[in-house]
């Protein structure tokens, strides 16, 4: 889990420090204070663990150099990562990393002032199969050839610690406030190709990716899918009664012409998947669900079924009635005991359901950028006790916030 993070020179985060709660952290603050930027900075770490960027990329775009320093607690060991990244924002405001360097302070392995350079992806795949290494091919070869001597000198324990962090980060999940909204955009079916074993998912995104993941999870027949149904089905929230996937075999024929003019015909077996949701007596396509129902189904599905270790969740209250939000928060709280969850919110209702130690106030000042303060840790012992007494006898944290009680 992440115990400390410092983000330097990334959007509004000039030098932003944040020590998240080991289980659940709720970021609150005005619009533009930098909550989303802080979450985006954390997602850069996931990119570093899944993509290799070692000095390549376009030279003619305006770039920003940032540093993200993170301390991880791994089974009693504190590991510190210094990640230097050079990024630019693409047309969708997504960060594209064109250069990165990851250095590590590893207790008992690295001297205090001499961090060791190990890319996260290298730690994940250096001892992996040739196929895994091929996943980031040129980049890995480029890095390992340039650093062949250094790679040889890296102790095995160092690889192991960095690999643990890389695994943690690669499983991180991020859900933006707009994700899964507007289900009318959802396709009524999707197509999969027959691969080896389970059908291989095509490149899907957003709503369709959720339906495809739902279908895949159902076919896996593990406990995750039944847990999901327990929560959203008739004995739980009763958002739906039943989910069915119609499977219609199809195929496509491709022709290719070889040298000499020989035409080769390739038939690819495919399957058209049509999701159908039963709600009462009605059978609905996913695009007929309400926005709140669709978003809740997706959030609960990913919270309950994915093996993530860190979840970043932006404004879970969007499009959701407070009765349902209460249940989503119940799911979030239960899962935060196993997965570190950091969420941002503008909702008093969310605050009503968490303790002061889970709440972090985010603010922005021109000269200091985004700042994060833990509500409980920034209060004196007597002030915190007074707040607890208020919550026991007088009111809720949400209304305390709205009334200015958490303002500086």
């Amino acid at each position, binding site marked *: 889990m992440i115990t400390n993070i410092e983000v330097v020179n990334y959007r509004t985060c000039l030098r932003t420090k944040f020590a998240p709660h080991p289980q659940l952290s709720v970021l609150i603050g005005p619009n533009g204070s930098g909550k989303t930027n802080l979450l985006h900075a954390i997602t850069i770490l996931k990119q570093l663990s899944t993509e290799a960027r070692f000095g390549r990329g376009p030279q003619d775009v305006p770039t920003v150099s940032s540093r993200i320093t993170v301390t991880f607690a791994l089974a009693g060991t504190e590991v510190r990562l210094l990640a230097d990244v050079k990024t630019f924002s693409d047309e969708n405001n997504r960060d594209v990393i064109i250069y990165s360097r990851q250095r590590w302070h590893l207790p008992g392995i690295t001297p205090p002032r001499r961090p060791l350079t190990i890319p996260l992806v290298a730690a994940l795949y250096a001892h992996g199969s040739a196929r895994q290494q091929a996943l980031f091919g040129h980049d890995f070869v480029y890095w390992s050839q340039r650093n062949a001597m250094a790679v040889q000198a890296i102790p095995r324990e160092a690889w192991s610690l960095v690999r643990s962090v890389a695994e943690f980060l690669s499983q991180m999940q991020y859900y933006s406030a707009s994700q899964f909204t507007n289900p009318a955009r959802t396709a009524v079916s999707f197509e999969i190709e027959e691969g080896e074993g389970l059908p291989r998912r095509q490149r899907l995104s957003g709503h369709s990716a959720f339906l495809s993941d739902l279908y895949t999870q159902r076919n896996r027949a593990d406990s995750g899918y*039944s847990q999901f149904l327990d929560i959203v089905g008739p*004995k739980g929230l009763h958002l739906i009664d039943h989910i069915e996937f119609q499977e219609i075999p199809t195929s496509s024929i491709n022709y290719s012409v070889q040298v000499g003019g020989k035409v080769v015909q390739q038939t690819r077996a495919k399957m058209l998947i049509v999701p159908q949701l039963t709600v009462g007596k009605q059978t609905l396509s996913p695009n007929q669900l309400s926005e709140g129902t669709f978003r809740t189904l997706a959030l609960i599905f990913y919270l309950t079924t994915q093996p993530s270790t860190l979840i970043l969740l932006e404004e879970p209250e969007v499009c959701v009635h407070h009765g349902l939000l209460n249940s989503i928060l119940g799911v979030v709280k*239960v899962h935060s005991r196993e997965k570190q969850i950091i969420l941002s919110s503008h909702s008093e209702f969310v605050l009503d359901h968490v303790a002061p130690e889970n709440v972090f106030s985010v603010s922005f000042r021109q000269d200091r950028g985004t700042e994060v303060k833990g509500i409980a840790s920034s209060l004196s012992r007597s002030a915190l006790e007074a707040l607890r007494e208020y919550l026991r*006898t007088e009111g809720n944290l949400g209304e305390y916030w709205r009334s200015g009680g958490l303002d500086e």
Partner: protein
Amino acid sequence: MIRLGFIAEDMSDVGVMREITGKVLPAGSFGTRHFVGQGCGRLKRKCRVWAEQLLQKGCTHIVVVHDLDDEIEKDLRHLLERAMKGVGGKGALILIPIYEIEAWLLTDGMAIKEVFSLQKEPKIPKNPESISDPKGSLEELVWRAQKKRYINTVHNESIAAAARLSQLEQCISFRPYPEFLRKALPKKARAAGSRG
């Protein structure tokens, strides 16, 4: 027609109370309205004005449900009784589940089995009211039985719907409720109920 006004900590508590009420009173003989505090501080501060609002909305009886948690029962009851003093209506009841309302739900293993489609009935604690964390205990019990996930805000209402009154009555903090409801029934309905 009895119109019950619930004042509780959250909606899942209201859901539990509605389901249990249906086990005591004949269907169609009661209606409910509610206010929820989303926490105990607001419930304590607002319970009087909420009770008055509920009476204005036509409620005949008020039921305040407040988990004991780590408070002292005598003090909590005194505080709530003081807040409700002279509120009016045909009757009011203060229920303080020990330590949480989930203790009531822990009394019926068959109900838990049904809600989570467990293969066999889980072993439930002998005295759920002696457990300081009934929510956690219920969660652990369901997980141990079949690696299923209990979430109070999701499943409490369904467990209450499946629970048997005779099992719920094992909890001392629950017993005043059926009694209160029976007394609230008009004499005619009570007589019809006893004949039935």
